[in-house]
């Protein structure tokens, strides 16, 4: 057969190998220290997460070219991944977390850092979303761990958000964790507020991170992952209610 003669040619096969949606890793970093037992905070967290899941799935369904993968990392005395592997959102079930121990945030950030190396992070992934939920102040050296995290490209460019549970959460620490220096921690002073904030990060932040509108460089500096306007417009207020006590975190 001469080049260009398709008379006896089979249908041309699409070039390249397997094609799939881009992965977007969504990490929950959950404070499971002893203070989370007070006023049923850990139960409120479990309930809020379970409640947020359908909303998260709805957003993911609206972004069929994004494959959302979820991991939960609990930290108290030390830190552990909950479950062995990252789980596709469609199969993800929030694990009921138990509280007890101290607040080893540094250990959690170190574990996260290992997961944000490439590999295992695929190069074609979208910027991951990392949500830190905490009601206290760290009991280990979180600063070194955070510096190491921010040395990684994926650590630097992750959408890093934080939810302050109760009034005693160390907001300075949470501010250091957040990727946008103009953004404050999300306030959750009641079970309702916690549910609202978790629903927000599960939907608005996920949707923004999934959008083709995200990301460019200006003046050789990387701009924030989520356009500032979107965050400020969507940012839910803390609300007036205060159900959680002012007890110091563990």
């Amino acid at each position: 057969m001469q080049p260009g003669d398709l008379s006896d040619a089979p249908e041309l096969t699409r070039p390249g190998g397997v094609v799939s949606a881009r992965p977007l890793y969504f990490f929950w970093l959950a404070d499971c220290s002893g203070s989370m037992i007070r006023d049923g905070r850990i139960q409120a967290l479990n309930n809020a997460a379970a409640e947020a899941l359908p909303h998260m799935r709805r957003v993911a369904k609206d972004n069929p070219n994004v494959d959302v993968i979820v991991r939960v990392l609990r930290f108290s005395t030390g830190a552990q991944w909950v479950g062995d592997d990252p789980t596709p959102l469609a199969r993800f079930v929030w694990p009921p977390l138990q509280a007890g121990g101290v607040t080893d945030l540094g250990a959690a950030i170190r574990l996260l850092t290992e997961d944000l190396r490439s590999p295992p992070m695929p190069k074609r992934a979208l910027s991951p979303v990392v949500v830190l939920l905490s009601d206290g102040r760290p009991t280990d050296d979180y600063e070194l761990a955070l510096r190491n995290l921010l040395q990684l490209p994926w650590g630097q460019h992750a959408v890093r958000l934080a939810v302050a549970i109760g009034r005693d959460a160390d907001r300075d620490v949470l501010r250091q964790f957040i990727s946008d220096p103009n953004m404050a921690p999300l306030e959750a002073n009641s079970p309702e507020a916690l549910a609202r904030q978790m629903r927000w990060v599960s939907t608005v932040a996920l949707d923004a991170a999934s959008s083709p509108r995200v990301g460019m460089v200006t003046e050789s500096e990387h701009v924030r992952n989520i356009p500032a306007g979107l965050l400020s417009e969507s940012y839910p207020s803390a609300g007036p209610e205060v159900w959680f006590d002012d007890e110091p975190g563990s």
Partner: protein
Amino acid sequence: MTTSPGARDAHRWAAFGASVRGSAHVREALPNQDAVGCRSGDSGRWAVTAVADGHGHSLAVRADRGAHLAVDAALEAARSCWEALRGQAGGFAAAAVAEELPTVMATSWMASVQRDLAEAPLTASELASSGNAEALSSYPETAYGTTLIVALAVAGSIVTCQIGDGDVVAVKRDGTVFRLLPADTRLVGTKTTSLASRSALSDFRASHVDVDSEAIEVVVAATDGYVNSFSAEDGFAAAGRDLWRLIHEVGASSVEGALASWLESTSTDGTGDDATLAILFDDVGLEDTVRLPDPGTTISDGGIL
């Protein structure tokens, strides 16, 4: 190199490409913000192709225009290079072109953008939709932000330049694939360097390669909407080899005819982003190939660095 009249050309370059709007752009009512262009001359003594991907960021309110201006600037700069160098003794100075071409293209693009802004300043609506009118007003060129990949073949040399994401590979006569440019480790997730950046000149990557010593037959360049659609990290390299094989088997015109539909289905099943791909190929080299390698030919990730 000068070919005497009647002598058989050692290389005869040609190029084609296609660009499609991504399904995510359709959902979000965004236009196709990619652009592609090809040009050749002097009976195939030279050919150039360029692909550009206007940024999806909200500040880049004229990204589609910026991408088209980038492709225009690249094609014109390549033609100018050829015109300037064709009569010089010593042949095509690929190394000098690789060094100069980014500056010529970036300067030309910026001038085009500034002319465009002078003729049509950013509107109140565009500033409002950017989400940060103050930032955009202070540096309106950001509205046109785009990436750019250019592959220029002249006789026995290929010059490649790139700023931002996307990818470009070469396929050799034996079917091996290699990257023409070094990786830019700053390009993570959806982050990219930009022609609109004040650091654009230093953000360019450029290389030149000798076609004969490397036995190059085909160069394939694509925007990230296509490159990132493949599950495997070497998916785009595999696509480059497949395209090379298809050109051998069914001819370039048939591949060109099918290209847009391949881009569309790849993007729809993958990133959902605009997808653009261009192929630069040596028609003489392809004619001379008498036997294709086995399907299992290894893809190398070496590069000329």
